[in-house]
């Protein structure tokens, strides 16, 4: 028997350690695994390096993890948000390090980490401040920069359904970083709205094959960040 199912989000994140690198899926609220993030806040791990496209909104989910002072460094493409002052305040106070990387380079670095590719060349950011200090190399007369793979100790992902083998399908644009972060982490933890027996997901439609998923936990009715914020919620 495969033992991928966890009874609740708390047990699923129990061994996240201080200093861990944690990838967090989502693009804005779409695909953000809020319940896993809140469980991580409860769990208490600190000095985390977080890899995620954004830094969260309001004071729930990812923004709440920052607010709780658990993030030492964030690797992301777009840390600005219209409705959160959490990250800007930490950043200006020098309490959180930022590694800014273009969104496509972020995605490709994560995929490379999952695919055993330590580095690759990309045309993105050539000649800009984000290329400073990076090796430039010419292929067919055009300059490219060398970028390095990203890997993580844990990935927190949100799915629509997952089966006992860890196969995952997603909901619409909530797919975003989920499949590639699942590839790049030692331990990938998926919160899924439905957990089903092996065989219920058509093998032609699996998006993340179970080999990339170590833990699955059912969160049948996940909160939506925008609704929590509208209701004035904070966490914890």
């Amino acid at each position, binding site marked *: 028997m495969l033992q991928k199912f966890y009874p609740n989000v708390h047990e699923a994140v129990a061994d996240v350690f201080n200093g861990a690198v944690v990838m967090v899926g989502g693009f804005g609220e779409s695909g953000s695994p809020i319940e896993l993030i809140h469980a991580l806040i409860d769990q208490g791990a600190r000095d985390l390096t977080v890899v995620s496209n954004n830094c969260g909104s309001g004071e729930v989910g990812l923004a709440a993890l920052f607010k709780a002072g658990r993030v030492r460094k964030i690797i992301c493409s777009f840390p600005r948000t219209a409705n959160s002052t959490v990250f800007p305040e930490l950043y200006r106070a020098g309490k959180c390090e930022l590694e800014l990387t273009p969104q496509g380079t972020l995605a490709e670095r994560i995929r490379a980490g999952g695919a055993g590719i330590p580095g690759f060349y990309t045309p*993105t950011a050539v000649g800009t401040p984000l290329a400073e200090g990076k090796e430039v190399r010419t292929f067919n007369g055009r300059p490219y920069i060398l970028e390095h793979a990203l890997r993580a100790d844990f990935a927190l992902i949100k799915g629509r359904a997952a089966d006992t083998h860890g196969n995952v399908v997603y909901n619409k644009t909530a797919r975003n970083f989920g499949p590639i972060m699942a590839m790049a982490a030692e331990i990938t933890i998926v919160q899924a709205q439905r957990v089903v027996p092996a065989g219920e997901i058509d093998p032609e439609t699996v998006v993340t094959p179970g080999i990339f998923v170590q833990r699955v936990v059912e969160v049948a009715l996940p909160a939506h960040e925008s609704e929590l914020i509208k209701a004035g919620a904070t966490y914890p």
Partner: protein
Amino acid sequence: MTKAASNGWTREQMAQRVAMDIPNGSYVNLGIGIPELIASFVPEDRTVIYHTENGMIGMGPPPAAGQGDPELINAGKRQVTALPGAAYFHHADSFAMIRGGHIDVSVLGALQVAHNGDLANWSTGEPDAIPAVGGAMDLCAGVKRVYVVTTHCTKDGQPKLVATCTLPLTGQGVVDRIYTEMAVIDVTPEGFRLVELAPGITLDDVQQRTGAPLLPIM
């Protein structure tokens, strides 16, 4: 100077003017702001397919009130819909489309555009600003044609079309065409070249508000 602006195109007219330049069958990525308006002006006899870098092709208009899904959004994080023929995919595949040259047109905003095609649109360079780049550099680097839609000048009247960008670059030599409230201007090997003037605007009006030489309509 204010006269020129008031006689020029509105935001909607600028968007409409861009829409005229998008050929049938194009795959298009629209930035946030004025570019978002373009989709509603594409002529009905053209099929244009919209890509949003957060993982969908075949994006449709915003949903009717109460019909949306908070997990079906565009790159500006607003709710959208999926048209028949749409497809969802992950971020690495989405940026493979961008970086790999599969998108025909990207329409972006700008802080500055230089006459060699350099674009600055991600950082105001202010020391306390939170730097944020998103997908702009990827779009510049990979999309076949990069169009910029922008006001001709900054709020305090400084030209956005310049000889050399003073703000941090988004990409080098990437802009193909610029649409402002005053004119449509191409970036050519010889520099800025006027393509079309808005009603009531003259070449001199535009040149006065442009920070680099402007070649006449060819």
